[in-house]
């Protein structure tokens, strides 16, 4: 049973998601374009690298905000899911398939909006056209990113709901955001070893977004030399993480425990 249409509607009419994942992130893009860019060299390659770095990190954080909203939706609907799996035609696999499809499309929507904001603001600041080199790859990565963050937040939220309680579910909803902020930004400033970037889904996504926008593979330092990251291991890395987390979500959904919203009260 496909619920993706309703899931998309619920998400796309969520004012908080639009404010935090779009307006707030667009504000940061504006800061990157107009305030932080004073020291950027005026060469085309420097401008593209600078613009793309901002874009990749901002999209990663926007997707993690989507993850926070999804985690909250489990806290809100744990009783409804437990009921629907027993007393309706909805199955855990059917529900998961719906939110996989819906989250992929939401990732796409967020990416397209932020892509436009990036190209517009950075193009205006540097008085040049900075369009993505491989839009099709970017669209694919954003679909995958939406699914990855949905699966990550679902796994964390369901673990908390099934074993810890709604209070913990509220906190774990922010884990993807914290990891995205730290690892996404750190990749700009820290020379991570290659194995770490390939193994980290957050850095896989950032790197693929960087490559899709700039057309150049991101690099890591190996001794004194800069080594390019291959897109195949990056893609494999995020695919494996996503598949594993989707599997975990399905197992946890089948055992979802109903919690009452009052339990969510922190104070």
């Amino acid at each position, binding site marked *: 049973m496909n619920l993706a249409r309703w899931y998309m509607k619920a998400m796309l009419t969520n004012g908080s998601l639009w404010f935090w994942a779009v307006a707030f992130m667009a504000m940061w893009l504006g800061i990157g374009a107009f305030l932080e860019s004073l020291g950027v060299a005026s060469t085309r390659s420097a401008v593209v690298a600078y613009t793309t770095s901002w874009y990749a990190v901002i999209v990663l954080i926007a997707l993690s905000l989507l993850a926070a909203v999804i985690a909250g939706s489990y806290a809100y609907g744990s009783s409804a899911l437990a009921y629907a799996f*027993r007393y*309706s035609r909805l199955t855990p696999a059917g529900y998961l398939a719906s939110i996989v499809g819906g989250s992929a499309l939401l990732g796409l929507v967020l990416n397209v909006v932020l892509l436009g904001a990036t190209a517009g603001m950075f193009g205006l600041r540097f008085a040049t056209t900075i369009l993505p080199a491989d839009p099709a790859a970017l669209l694919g990565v954003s679909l995958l990113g939406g699914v990855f963050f949905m699966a990550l937040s679902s796994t964390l939220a369901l673990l908390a709901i099934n074993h810890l309680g709604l209070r913990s579910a509220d906190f774990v909803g922010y884990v993807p955001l914290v990891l995205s902020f730290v690892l996404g930004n750190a990749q700009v400033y820290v020379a991570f070893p290659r194995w770490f970037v390939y193994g980290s889904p957050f850095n896989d996504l950032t790197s693929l977004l960087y490559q899709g926008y700039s057309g150049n593979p991101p690099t890591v330092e190996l001794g004194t030399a800069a080594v390019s990251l291959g897109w195949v291991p990056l893609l494999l890395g995020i695919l494996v993480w996503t598949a594993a987390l989707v599997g975990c979500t399905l197992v946890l959904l089948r055992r979802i425990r109903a919690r009452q919203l009052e339990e969510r009260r922190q104070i």
Partner: protein
Amino acid sequence: MLDIRGLTVTFPGTTTPALRGIDLRLEGAKMVVVGANGSGKTTLIRSILGLVAPSSGSIAVGGTDVRTIRGEPGLSTNLAEVYRLMSLPVRDLVRLFARLKGGDPAEMEGHLRSFELDPALGKRLYELSTGQQKLVGDLFAVSFGPRLVLLDEPFDNVDFGRRRRLVGLLRALPADVLLNTHELELLGSFADWQLGLMFEGQLLGPFSVAELDRLYLTRGEVRGALAVLRSSVGTFSVTRDAGDRPVKSATSLNALVESLA
């Protein structure tokens, strides 16, 4: 349709059970369970829905244990928490649940219109008044061809005119019904239904609402009693035609027990 045997529920961190050895069978029947707030009525419904795990005993719906039941759209409830599947306007929730239950959304939209709740269609559940939320839950429960309906305080915060219409709808509903209420004065509307009395997690009955005038509560354990209640304030018996206090005279079951304790 519903078969409960020896159901006991004790919540984590507590020693006093919320439900104590409940036995209940409902097949081709409708039952009102009367009890004060906190007596365990909602916990009973949440247990049947699979939202609360039993500490012991069993619950079967349509012959299948609730712990393993899947894909049985014939059971429905008015508890609002089960309709929070997604944050959507009521109109979309109606369509969504019609699809999940295999029903026609026009049926519930018709109910909403007849209860003058059309304006609720464009609002989310949390945007409705408490009474509107309760009625929308009630109408979800009776829509889409249910075979067993579990109603928790369906008349709370509902105005008099709509109460009457809801009573008529429930009486005519071709389904088994388990209806919880703390309002003894409502019983007159359900004269041909079964009656259960709930106190401190124990369910006494089934009696018949029609014989309410003949039921008495009596101190101690009386030989030949219809049911015996062992509570924290003493032991009482439900007797017929004679006893210490007529059940009908009480404003609530708590008040009745307290008057004898």
